[in-house]
């Protein structure tokens, strides 16, 4: 029982954090937004391969780093903190371990080296962000993971509130698979934590900068207490997400529900702190807020996960109460 990262694990997470913060800046995102041909903006994909991020949880025999999935969850939070626009987490955190389980060695090696992009599909929605950049799709069908070539599916574009999410409906989504959905849910929850954290940081910066009535607005208790509430919710969401990354079961669904509620609260609070400025493109908040709204519904929305939790927690044989900690 040791619910913290080892120092080696923490180092990997910090390194990813440093890379994201240095490269995937707000300016980089603005460039993507403003460019009519976003492909002009250099992709970070080769860097991900070089840094070993794509093979983070892959077996050593495939030149992977063989890290625990919980490290991937830690990195997903850092990706959320910068609202990463490339499907690193989905590919490295979902496709790679499932490919390893499938023993699809050839594809796995190509994905890890950055030469192939295999995007996982959520059977619940069939909606995939960046689907246009994928070479293949990983779907769950009839209880098995299956690879589908891009040429075998039709992609129908959708318009998300988040312009940095090029969203498509995939014609063959399958009916889902626990190995895919579970990882998707956990990493999505972790990403949402990072987005929430960033929305607090942006709000704190704004509240220190902005003056009204001759004072920094961040000196008013009303502002302080709202941000302290969001901070508290984040601090009590991250551990259940990490637990979910370590141990399956009902905490996976709890992690997702908590991260949705926290992200919605973070966005509402952030825009309240920003006032009218939060509505402008000048201020960066909108990029994180829109991503949060979009991701809340990915990998099963709140209704989906609450409905599952309900059957688990209200079951007659549910393990509840002291003395049953983490024993489900």
């Amino acid at each position: 029982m040791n619910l913290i990262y080892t120092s080696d694990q923490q180092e990997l997470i910090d390194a990813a954090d440093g890379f994201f913060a240095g490269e995937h800046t707000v300016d980089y995102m603005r460039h993507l937004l403003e460019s009519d041909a976003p492909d002009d903006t250099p992709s970070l994909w080769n860097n991900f391969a070089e840094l070993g991020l794509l093979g983070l949880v892959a077996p050593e025999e495939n030149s992977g780093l063989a890290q625990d999935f919980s490290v991937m969850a830690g990195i997903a939070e850092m990706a959320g903190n910068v609202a990463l626009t490339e499907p690193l987490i989905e590919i490295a955190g979902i496709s790679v371990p499932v490919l390893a389980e499938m023993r699809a060695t050839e594809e796995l090696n190509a994905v890890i080296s950055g030469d192939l992009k295999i995007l996982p599909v959520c059977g619940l929605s069939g909606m995939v962000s960046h689907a246009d950049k994928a070479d293949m799709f990983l779907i769950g069908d009839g209880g098995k993971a299956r690879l589908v070539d891009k040429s075998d599916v039709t992609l129908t574009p959708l318009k998300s509130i988040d312009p940095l999410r090029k969203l498509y409906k995939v014609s063959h989504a399958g009916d889902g698979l626990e190995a895919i959905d579970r990882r998707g849910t956990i990493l999505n929850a972790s990403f949402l934590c990072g987005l929430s954290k960033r929305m607090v940081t942006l709000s704190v910066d704004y509240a220190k900068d902005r003056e009204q009535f001759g004072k920094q607005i961040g000196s008013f208790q009303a502002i302080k207490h709202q941000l302290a509430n969001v901070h508290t919710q984040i601090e009590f969401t991250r551990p259940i997400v990490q637990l979910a990354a370590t141990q399956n079961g009902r905490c996976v669904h709890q992690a997702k529900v908590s991260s949705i509620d926290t992200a919605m609260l973070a966005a509402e609070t952030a825009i309240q702190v920003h006032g009218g400025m939060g509505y402008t493109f000048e201020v960066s908040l909108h990029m994180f807020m829109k991503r949060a709204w979009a991701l809340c519904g990915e990998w099963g929305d709140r209704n989906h996960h609450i409905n599952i939790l309900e059957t688990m927690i209200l079951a007659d044989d549910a393990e509840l109460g002291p003395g049953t900690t983490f024993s489900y």
Partner: protein
Amino acid sequence: MDAVFSDNQNQFRQEVRDWLSANVPGERLPSLDTQEGFDLHRAWERKLHAGNWGMVTWPEEFGGRGCSLTDWLIFEEEYYRADAPLRVSQNGIFLLGPTIMEYGTDEQKERFLKPMAAGDEIWAQAWSEPGAGSDMAAIRSKAVRDGDEYVISGQKIWSSRAVFADWCFGLFRTDPESSRHHGLSKILVPLDSPGLTVRPIAQLDGDPGFAELFFDEVRVPVNNLLGPENGGWGVAMATAGFERGLLLRSPARFQAAAARLVKLYKQNANRLSSGIKEQVLQAWGDTERFTAATYALVAQVDSGASISSEASANKIFWSEMDRAMHRTAMTIMGMHAELEEGDGAIENGRWLDGYMFSLAGPIYAGTNEIQRNILAERVLGLPRQ
């Protein structure tokens, strides 16, 4: 005390309903924050005016029907029931118009009210400044008297409708020695004045609903002063007063949204989490509370009472009710909540737009934090800081 509409009121309602049913466009107009949408909304205002439905509470001499506020609530209910277009002229007819009736000279009434009512002149607000948002007394834009003209310099922000409108009204500092609430004047400015630059603000939804206004020695005749020079704060407060503010947020708007929410709920009920049903009931229940409270307040106003700090509780209640209602819709839509278009998008993203709009409710017209301060200090009597 009674809650029964009179025969006259029922007859009025029927008249409104009939006219709207015959005249409301069959399809929703494009956003009024696009040129095309703005023009279509202006055309709708002209149609309303032609039918004598432009502003029913205005006196007959100015093109209204002299209706009571209770009648106005009925009009609004029918208006929202018919899903009629947003009022592109709302800054003028709801806020500036009544102020001109109270403070304007006869010439100003003659000059401004009719084109305003007719939709020929659409007005924008010019209150906030980059350094004066919630704290409006921090206004720095100045208007310097030069003979028969004011020379205006400075910057305004969050000017709604300004991108496509004809005129704006706002507060400017006419006494350079003054500070805070003193020395401000309310001045009317044509948006095509030389020296005035209108810069659209790209918003969350991409449309330019607001603009920044840059005044570089913009000249307007002193006749464009509304009310006393250096007495603009009082004039502005009258504009911001409850009776008029109310007109922008009659219960009808929320009744319409809550009824749509009930429908959305029913369409999705079988896949929703168990708590949603009570959230939907809460939304409808709060709407009924807001409706009852508004009819009670309007009865007080119609009977001659004046309303002041009640406006703060009102602002807090409707804005947080509206946000909660739209948040519930977002939760119901779940994985489809993010969609503006495409397979699965619900009502072309109308709830999503509504949610973003609802988040502004607790911010604009005095943040809810400020409203809570006002309630605590002026109504409950708690000490100032």
